[in-house]
């Protein structure tokens, strides 16, 4: 009887040992696969934006000359000759003008939430509204801008209507960025300032702002860059296929993203279109990299 049990135990031990050796090898293989899959996925994630830029550069770099950047499209409509200067100018004007209200309300609102507000309920409610505003698609802003600014206010399709609509797109991003940046300031700094009895304004200007400004600036630049690439908000508010006229507040304008859309739908993926896409993508990626580096160099 004892022998039988020993035999059993021996067989069981052998079996267990064999199985654990097998699972150990299985685990090693599985772990290697797991790591490999994660590295490949990470590599793909990094490769996509690089590939997009490289692809555009490959086909479009030959089109991008000084003349392409700084002259107007030739011909009576878009036929793929001449330059894109009116679109560049229009985009800068739209974003620049739109930034005025977006900065005022965005930075101001962020300051109130971070520096003065003591009510959790208000913070949650305000953040919910602002985040909803940030989630609303650009096309819906375009509808809104069309109905209110273009039709009801009789602005017509114009630079001012497009700029205000882009302001709506940028405002929630800037407000959230400002709030987050100020909130991330080390509370010990604030407590120390508070203990010295300085005023709220002094604390904001001399303690919080010097620490938080790079993060605030980064969020402003990223919001501006986002607006620069957004075609949907401009579709019904300011966009025109072609204009030779100088910029005017109440005149329709060309812009880089809408220009790329119109060019593609009228003449297809020509070298001229690739050049326009390259300028837009390089501008946006370049400025975004600058903004991210700024934030990294000055961590909170």
């Amino acid at each position, binding site marked *: 009887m004892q022998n039988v049990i020993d035999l059993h135990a021996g067989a069981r031990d052998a079996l267990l040992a064999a199985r654990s050796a097998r*699972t150990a090898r*299985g*685990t090693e293989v599985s*772990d290697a696969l*797991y*790591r490999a899959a*994660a*590295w490949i*996925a*990470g590599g*793909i*994630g*990094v490769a*996509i*934006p690089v590939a*997009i830029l490289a692809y555009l550069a490959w*086909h479009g770099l030959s089109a991008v000359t000084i003349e392409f950047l700084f002259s107007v499209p030739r011909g009576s409509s878009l036929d793929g000759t001449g330059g894109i200067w009116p679109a560049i100018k229009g985009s800068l004007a739209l974003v620049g003008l739109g930034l005025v209200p977006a900065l005022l*309300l965005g930075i*101001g*609102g962020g*300051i*109130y939430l971070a*520096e*003065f507000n003591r009510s959790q309920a208000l913070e949650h409610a*305000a953040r919910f*509204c*602002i*985040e909803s*505003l940030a*989630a*609303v*698609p*650009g*096309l*819906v802003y375009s509808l809104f801008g069309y*109905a209110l600014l273009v*039709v009801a206010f009789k602005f017509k399709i114009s630079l001012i209507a497009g700029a205000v609509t882009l302001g*709506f797109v940028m405002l*929630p991003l800037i407000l959230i960025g400002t709030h987050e940046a100020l909130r991330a300031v080390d509370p010990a700094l604030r407590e120390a300032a508070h203990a010295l009895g300085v*005023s709220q304004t*002094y604390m*904001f200007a001399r303690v919080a702002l010097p620490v938080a400004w790079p993060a605030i600036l980064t969020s402003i630049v*990223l919001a501006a860059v*986002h607006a*620069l*690439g957004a*075609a*949907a908000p401009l*579709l019904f508010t300011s966009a025109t296929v072609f204009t030779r006229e100088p910029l005017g507040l109440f005149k329709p304008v060309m812009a880089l*993203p*809408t220009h790329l*859309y119109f060019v593609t739908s009228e003449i*297809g993926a020509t070298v001229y279109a*690739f050049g326009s*896409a390259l300028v*837009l*993508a390089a501008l946006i*990626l370049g400025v*975004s990299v600058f903004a*991210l580096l700024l934030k990294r160099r000055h961590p909170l």
Partner: protein
Amino acid sequence: MHAATHSDALLRNGSLAALASAVALLALVVGYIVWESRIPPADGTSLAGFLLFDRWDPTGQPPLLGIGHAWMATLLVVGLAVALATPLAILIGIFLAEIAPPAARAVAEPTLQLLAGVPAVVYGFVGYATLVPFMERWLPTGETLLCAAVILALMVLPFIAATAAESFSLVARELRYGGLALGVSRWYAFSRITLRKAAPGVLAGVILGMGRGLGETLAVLMLSGNSPLFPDSLVSRGQPLTALIATDLGESAIHSDRYYALFSAGLMLMVTVIAINALVIRLKQRLVGAERH
């Protein structure tokens, strides 16, 4: 002292006014879109016809204003895009949260942020120049819902990946290391511990991706074929909701039935996206809340 309190009051009231205006503007956007909408859009049309059954034929006799085809196309494109993007996004999330050494993460994270920053119209253009001719080799037309979905998958990828990575790294280390110490494989530990704990966060990312996809305009406008018919398959042309609005508003007379129909479509889009946003916030709160206990 007097000067200090004066400037305090100025900063406080000024910034409060800014916050109040920002919140009021949201109310204005929502309110004005509601004001300009009519559901159903015209006398003699029904809600069911508008949403589901009618064709979109605003110039026919009688004019038909149904947006069912657009909802169908939107659901197909967004569903497929999210389905394509999610597995890769989860793997990228694993990479960022568990596998990548700090130096690799320092490159990968901002690069994904850049990917999220590429404008929609550039994605649309790249898809138009690469995917459309590629698909034309096999299909009668390259501009299909499938084509739009593939490009849209790239666009929502960084959002899902970032949210997944964030929720994976919120899972307590002790749990993960405890599992690994038992000698199970990393995949086993991930799928049985990390993924289960982080599931609400991953779901939040997927839903966030859907919200982004729903409102995406330029890429689907350029790639989906933009034809107002009920799509019968993924490789047929279609016209997602945003493409319908973008195409037709310019041709609609102000305050015509067609205009109201398009604004109603926009209203539904906005309400859906805001609801999705609220859901994402709740899911994330639950994830963080669960970690505290």
